[in-house]
């Protein structure tokens, strides 16, 4: 069910589907550094790499994102999770779903980060927190995008 919906979203974006396949190949050629290895990762791979297959509980993570984003090129979001060591943010409907992984150090004043992200189409944004005790928690937020930020 989850998978079907995601595919439908990607296909729904029309020409985006073609871009999604062509993009990662070139990105790897241009940037041999480690980050390029993330270019072809699916949402499932991102989650599996982050959690190591551990169960992810709902709640305990705050994800603030607008309900409707007129411009998908710059969508303000913020994530916070009390007691989190790391937070992974995914844009499940983007050609490359990875957004960011933030690690909090000893000098962090809170487990919170705000930034601006690109969303290619209407989709769910997911935040998964790795807690200091090793458990995982997540939050999800649907954002309706009027103009996609794919830049195609």
């Amino acid at each position, binding site marked *: 069910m989850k998978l079907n919906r995601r595919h439908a979203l990607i296909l729904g974006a029309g020409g985006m589907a073609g871009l*999604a396949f062509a993009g990662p190949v070139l990105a790897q050629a*241009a940037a041999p550094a480690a980050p390029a290895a993330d270019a072809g990762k699916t949402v499932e791979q991102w989650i599996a790499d982050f959690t190591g297959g551990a169960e992810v509980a709902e709640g305990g993570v705050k994800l603030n994102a607008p309900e409707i984003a007129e411009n998908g090129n710059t969508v303000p979001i913020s994530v916070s999770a009390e007691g989190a060591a790391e937070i992974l943010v995914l844009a499940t409907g983007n050609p490359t779903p990875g957004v960011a*992984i933030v690690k909090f150090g000893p000098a962090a*004043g809170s487990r919170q980060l705000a*930034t601006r992200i690109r969303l290619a189409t209407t989709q769910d944004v997911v935040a998964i927190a790795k807690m200091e005790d090793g458990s995982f928690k997540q939050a999800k937020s649907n954002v309706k995008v009027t103009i996609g930020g794919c830049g195609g």
Partner: protein
Amino acid sequence: MAKDVKPRVKVPKSAKPGDIITLKTLISHPMESGQRKDAEGKIIPREIINRFVVDFAGQNVIDVQMEPAISTNPYFEFEVKVDQPGEFTFTWYDDDGSVYEEKQSIDVS
């Protein structure tokens, strides 16, 4: 190296020991996602800032792994606990190997 990369950070001048302060950072950078095409239909290769690290007085505050979904001119807002005077170092790592650094001190008393 991407053109006109200019880091900007907003740090309060002073704080009291134990205060939690909010920092805002922005760096001008196109964050070319590797998804866009030019006028001839060729894909413009990816060229983004892939990592952002903030340290305060030798201790890490945040370490962010950045992906192409981060918007042009990456902006971050976060909080830091300050116990002592010290220097913030902000470091951005570009795909092309460039490293952009900015330092700022804060008075804590």
